[in-house]
């Protein structure tokens, strides 16, 4: 039982970060049909900017805010300078652009910061709490609470603000949204900004546990993408569920079956799910227009 709880805690923690990355994928995908493979770089920026601002003497909370601002600015620039000029290009062209952006951002981070691993002090103390025999890091709870707060805030934003509703309208039908007077270009820009911000917060929260370096983004993008697809692309709730499931599969797979093959277990389950439900867990079955 203590083992089980231990795996559960670590799985949920990692899963929460995957969920945030998957949520970022989903937001941008919904607004613009772009699969943004630079999504993991926002997580990296969140962690790295905080670490280096803190090293430069900026108090930690301020450093974190600064990191989010930097990531949001990068997200907006990515949209303005790379995605908007390529408007109308095919989906696969846009994917290569985001892959280029991801290589570029990694290169910038390697030059502007360095290529070493960095950590942050835990936000809520470093002594683990014993829960039913399992040692739970307070930081894990910070990660989970942070993720829950972001998801709630995002939901409130979508459901209760005019801008949020414009985002939903753009996602469901871009042309119709434009006809009702929504500036869809700004909505797409907004989706990049929000995705970048969400990613950065995730990066800041998880750095005390998993460390960060200039190249952590690739693996996170890969897992986040898989999580988003598992949940059903375009479904925010699916993205969160997918992220948590991938995290849990990894943790339990590593604990009970084989740590060397933990990623294999996660992907085998994803493959199995896609065979049974080709549209993902919470995705709606696609209706094809001919």
């Amino acid at each position, binding site marked *: 039982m203590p083992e089980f709880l231990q795996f559960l805690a670590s799985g949920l923690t990692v899963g929460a970060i995957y969920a945030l990355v998957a949520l970022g994928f989903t937001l941008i995908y919904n607004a613009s049909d772009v699969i943004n493979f630079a999504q993991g770089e926002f997580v990296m920026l969140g962690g790295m900017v905080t670490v280096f601002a803190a090293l430069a003497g900026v108090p930690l909370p301020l450093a974190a805010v600064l990191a989010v601002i930097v990531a949001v600015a990068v997200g907006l620039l990515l949209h303005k300078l790379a995605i908007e000029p390529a408007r109308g290009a095919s989906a696969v062209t846009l994917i290569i652009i985001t*892959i280029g952006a991801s290589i570029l951002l990694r290169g910038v981070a390697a030059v502007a910061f360095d290529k070493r691993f960095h950590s942050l002090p835990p936000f809520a103390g470093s002594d683990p709490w014993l829960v039913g025999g399992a040692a739970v890091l307070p930081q894990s709870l910070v990660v989970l609470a942070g993720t829950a707060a972001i998801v709630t805030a995002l939901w409130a934003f979508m459901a209760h603000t005019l801008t949020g509703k414009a985002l939903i309208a753009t996602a469901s039908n871009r042309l119709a949204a434009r006809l009702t007077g929504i500036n869809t270009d700004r909505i797409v820009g907004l989706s990049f900004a929000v995705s970048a911000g969400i990613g950065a917060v995730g990066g800041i929260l998880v750095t005390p546990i998993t460390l960060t370096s200039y190249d952590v983004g690739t693996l996170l993008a890969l897992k986040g993408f898989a999580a988003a697809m598992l949940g059903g692309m375009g479904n925010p709730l699916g993205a969160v569920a997918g992220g948590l499931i991938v995290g849990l599969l990894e943790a339990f797979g590593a604990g009970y079956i084989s740590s060397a093959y933990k990623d294999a277990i996660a992907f085998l389950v994803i493959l199995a799910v896609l065979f049974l439900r080709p549209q993902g867990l919470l995705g709606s079955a696609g209706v094809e227009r001919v």
Partner: protein
Amino acid sequence: MRLRTSNVTVVAAVAALVAVLPLVLPSPFYFRIAALVFIFALAVLGLNLLMGFAGQVSLGHAGFFGIGAYAVAIGPTHWGVPSWAALPAGAAAAGLLAYLVGRPILRLRGHYLAVATLGMGLLIAMVFTNEARLTGGPDGMPVPRLELFGWRVRGSITWYWVSGVTLVIGVWLATNLIGSPTGRAFRAIHDSETAASMLGIDLARYKLTAFVLSAVYAAVAGAYLALFDGLVTPATAGFLRSIEFVSMAVLGGLGSILGSLVGAAVLVVLPQMLTVFHDYEHIALGLIMIVFMIFLRAGIVPSLAAVVARRVG
């Protein structure tokens, strides 16, 4: 008839390039780069059959590339299979795996297919990383040199010719395929799966054909790279390698045979040239990829061909 003429032109152009290029290459180092371009172009050519012609994405092709590479490493080292026999065996193994995996996977569409192939590629790479007794684990393993009738195939200039001739054969096979009813079925599937199936095209069968073919191309290219380098590591089959293949195919131009060669050339040569920028190498590479895709969004070869056609017409 016009289609066939242009096919012959493409094969002739690639053959002429392979034949003439040595006249201007100043040192074995450049032969090495050119050989790498040909080897990667071979893999990208296969991927282009799948992505550019049949319209199916794969983010896991490095897995097949890795199977080819490890076949010529493991075969001679552990099982006493000579390299020349291990190479086709590896290609056959990759084709068989693609056949088995492709049946269920190719029912998926678009991004779901992307994530499924990505998962497949990761699983293959993970086996190479973890089965250390056979594969040497994360550090990889040495690959014995290829020996044909007592002739040791080694050195950059030798490999230039071996890979160049193979690429010409690969291009010739691909152009023939594209001009055949199978190639037309691929393009029909690409344009509209519904319309294609209404015409009586067996979607599953043709998608599977494209998948298996592209896997075999990738495996042969992987075996060549391993034999050429004399070393193979799990990174050969890694996710980044898969992404590299897709980037090459898209950058050069999906659906363009010459595009595969150009895309491979750009992404093999560029990092070599950019090493003069030292730490700024990745920044430059990323920027160039973005700028190319914004301004030549259909890929280098098709976009430039369109420009030329406009000028002429």
